[in-house]
């Protein structure tokens, strides 16, 4: 007993924890607190004087009030629709066994890793007013004009639901796996009907997962930019108003709107953080330990379930298939036809032979890998620090870590560029603007919350007595970390790192503001080809990006399996 208590005291005063606290403090101070404060202060300034005038003006402008209202409303509706799709799907795949269930269940989380820009482009090709689907329906029904237009609320909700329902699907699935099956059985044996069991036993246990999914969906939707830009029609949302104000060089307005958006997102975050379930997201997302599933016995029901799965999977895959198709379309062969009329390998050969073109893929890989690796190391620091129950301010650290995730990508990029664009004694005149490193740093800041959450979740599930046992057997700090802690949190940490890596690969909204020739990422190349109407080349880049993502997920799955043997 004596040795253990001595150990735990030593743990707190140990120089390694001091270093840990220093690292976490410095990164948070310079990466999160300082840039955010600068942004806030800039919104309170006009003509060199402190004033609330910007806010007064913003609150007087009806367009901005509308944008704020519609942003929130759109996000609430998105949460609802995503829940309606994701939750039943999770029940179907988690509770029942039918042919090809495994493939369908993997496919269902596909949109999670589809880069927003690529997804948007594919959606335009597929369901746009003059896209493949619209043209096909028009020909089929012999209509005079396009059967629909991909604009406004319908289009926004469709795209948001497509890209964000996996939050609900993945988290509900993970929640269902954790539920104690015995409780349901007990309720049933006491005579409860299935509906009653669902509402009184299953759903209450799922609540943390559902709330976590709702939060992620809400924040992602608030920060959504590509979708309102391309499909918004006349709908005003905050991200778009910020973009337009920036384009008009109306910096004070853009800043003030940014702060309004950030406050709403952070408010939601603080509100939901009380339900700690959020953290389990990533770890649960990739673990996939199946429990007992009920096989569907009746032949007809099996066919129907499999058919539903198949139809759903095809719907999910359609945007990717469209992209594949367009990536083989000959330049200028797809103008008014429903489908491209001529096919070629030219788009790919052009990318693979041009020196420039390959370098963008390499750049993206390099920067995402850097960001992900540093995020992994950093999250180990944060998680170790925060897991110490005695530490004061753990909640604040946890919250600060999540701030970049709650901010739209544009905001993170602008605040970093503002803070590290000029010599300034406060930052040691450290300059990032115009260097290669600005993008890895921004990727790191934006996506490290995913890794931190994953590692934290794994640490929480870890039995602390294991480390105590190791300590009582005389294992020192480092040894304990390497031999006990790390192996246990490894799968979760790896999953989070992979997710951060994959999302960083396709990052666009922040990159476009600050990239330089030396770090031009693939998303910028896609946008540039789109701008020049080289649709085939843009699609080919998109496909290569998807292949890269698929490859890295396969490698990670191998790595995880290997570490379990």
């Amino acid at each position, binding site marked *: 007993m004596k040795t253990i208590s001595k150990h735990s005291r030593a743990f707190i005063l140990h120089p390694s924890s001091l270093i840990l606290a220093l690292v976490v403090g410095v990164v948070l101070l310079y990466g999160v607190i300082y840039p955010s404060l600068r942004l806030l202060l800039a919104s309170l300034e006009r003509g060199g004087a402190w004033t609330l005038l910007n806010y007064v003006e913003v609150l007087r402008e*009806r*367009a901005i009030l509308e944008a704020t209202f519609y942003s929130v409303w759109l996000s609430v509706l998105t949460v609802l629709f995503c829940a309606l799709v994701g939750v039943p799907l999770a029940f179907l795949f988690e509770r029942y066994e039918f042919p090809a269930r495994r493939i369908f269940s993997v496919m269902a989380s596909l949109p999670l890793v589809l880069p927003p820009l690529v997804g948007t482009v594919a959606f*335009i090709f597929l369901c746009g*007013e*003059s896209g493949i689907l619209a043209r096909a329906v028009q020909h089929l029904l012999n209509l005079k004009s*396009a059967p629909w237009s991909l604009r406004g609320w319908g289009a926004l909700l469709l795209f948001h639901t497509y890209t964000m329902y996996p939050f609900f699907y993945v988290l509900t699935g993970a929640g269902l796996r954790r539920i104690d099956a015995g409780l349901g059985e007990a309720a049933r044996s006491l005579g409860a009907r299935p509906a009653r069991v669902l509402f009184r036993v299953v759903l209450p246990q799922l609540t943390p997962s559902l709330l976590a999914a709702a939060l992620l969906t809400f924040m992602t939707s608030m920060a959504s930019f590509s979708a309102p*830009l*391309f499909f918004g*029609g*006349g709908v*005003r949302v905050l991200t778009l108003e910020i*973009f*337009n104000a920036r*384009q*008009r*060089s109306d910096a004070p307005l853009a800043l003030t709107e940014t702060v309004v958006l950030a406050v709403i997102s952070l408010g939601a975050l603080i509100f939901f953080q009380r339900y700690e379930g959020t953290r389990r997201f990533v770890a649960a997302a990739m673990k996939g330990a199946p429990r007992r599933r009920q096989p569907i016995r009746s032949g007809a029901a099996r066919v129907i379930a499999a058919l539903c799965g198949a139809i759903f999977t095809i719907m999910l895959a359609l945007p990717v298939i469209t992209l594949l198709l367009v990536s083989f379309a000959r*330049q*200028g*062969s797809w*103008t*008014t036809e429903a489908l491209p009329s001529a096919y070629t390998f030219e788009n790919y050969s052009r990318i693979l032979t041009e020196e420039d073109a390959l370098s963008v893929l390499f750049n993206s890989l*390099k920067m995402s*890998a*850097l960001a992900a*690796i*540093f995020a*992994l190391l950093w999250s180990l620091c944060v998680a170790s620090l925060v897991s110490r129950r005695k530490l004061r301010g753990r909640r604040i650290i946890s919250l600060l870590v999540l701030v970049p995730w709650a901010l739209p990508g544009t905001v993170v990029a602008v605040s970093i*560029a503002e803070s590290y*664009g*000029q*010599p300034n004694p406060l930052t040691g005149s450290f*300059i990032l*603007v*115009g260097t*290669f*490193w600005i993008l890895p740093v921004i990727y790191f800041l934006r996506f490290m919350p995913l890794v931190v959450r994953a590692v934290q979740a794994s640490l929480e599930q870890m039995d602390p007595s294991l480390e105590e046992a190791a300590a009582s057997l005389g294992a020192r700090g480092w040894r304990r970390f*390497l*031999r006990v802690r*790390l*192996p246990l949190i*490894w799968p979760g940490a790896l999953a989070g790192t992979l997710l951060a890596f994959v999302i960083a690969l396709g990052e666009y909204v922040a990159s*476009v*503001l600050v*990239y*330089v*020739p*030396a770090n*031009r990422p693939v998303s910028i190349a896609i946008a*540039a*080809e*789109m*701008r*020049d*109407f*080289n649709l085939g080349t843009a699609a080919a880049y998109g496909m290569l990006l998807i292949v890269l993502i698929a490859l890295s997920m396969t490698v990670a799955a191998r*790595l995880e399996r*290997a*570490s*379990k*043997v």
Partner: protein
Amino acid sequence: MYSKSVRTALLLILSSAFLLSFACKGGGGGSAERKLTIYTPHGQDMLKDFVARYRSVHPEVNVQFLDMGSQEVLARLRAERNRPQADLWWGASHLTFQTAADENLLSAYRPTWADKIPAASRDAQDRWYGTYQTPEVIVYNTQLVRPEDAPRDWDDVLDARWRDKILIRNPNPSDSMRAIFGAMIWRYYKDTNSAAGGYDWLRRLDANVHEYTVDGALLMQKLARGEGAISLWNMPDVWVYKEQKGLTQLAYAFPSSGTLVITDGIAVVRGAPNEEEARRFYEFVTSVESLTYAAQKYYRLPIRTDIDRNQLPAWMNEPFKQMDMNWDLLRREGGEWLRYWDAEIRGRQRN
């Protein structure tokens, strides 16, 4: 063993991180070759072509370009004011250049051909010079609109028969659209000294607009695919899409009361890290040969007056009527006009 493989993996990751950061240093710079960085909205096709042509004369120069909208160029130069990254800014309307010049973002350079262009097409203090003329025209889809039915003048697009048939590019990031909107406001402003009449015109336009598109490429694509029948856009782009991108159904008409002509320019960035290289490329793309080539291949109307007009495509020599415009007023008031349009006019005329 469990922990062994984890340790191997961790070692692998750490060493790859180390190697990566090393590789980035190597790729980032430090090479002895001469460098030039250009910010430009001219689009990849044209840029790659000109860079290749330039490199065939100066193979020792490593030319890099960042292609982005002209407003984005301006925003970047502002952000990089204390640590300029770009050497040359090639392409934007003279209004945007003048704004940048007033904010002290450009450096004066007097090209060898300075006296070969009209005084109005250059900055009095040599901070920017005009390169191309960009006429703004009425564009239509010939599959939906017969040439004789197409709008002939600006006011014709307000006609009720174009309701829900007009496509307009989002004017916030676009020099062309800002200028057109500004010109429409100026038509009323010059008599009434107020923007109200112009706002009214834009309201009536808004009532006919089917969609405000994100960028020029989508505008041309949607127009060609018949999502709308007519649009207002710049002439060189229409030619490019018609001749090189397969959208042969596009056609344009000069507004009969006069067309708006934007001066497209070029400038050396203040504090450019490679100012010498910037000037060399500046001279290269504004040489008579390059301007003639740009005219033939990219439909750019040269401003220089000492060009052999016989070398230019025939249509470039057909005269067109220019519209009068108070550019200074647009530069002063344009931001406020656009803000008002965005907040109070856009999308508010539906139903």
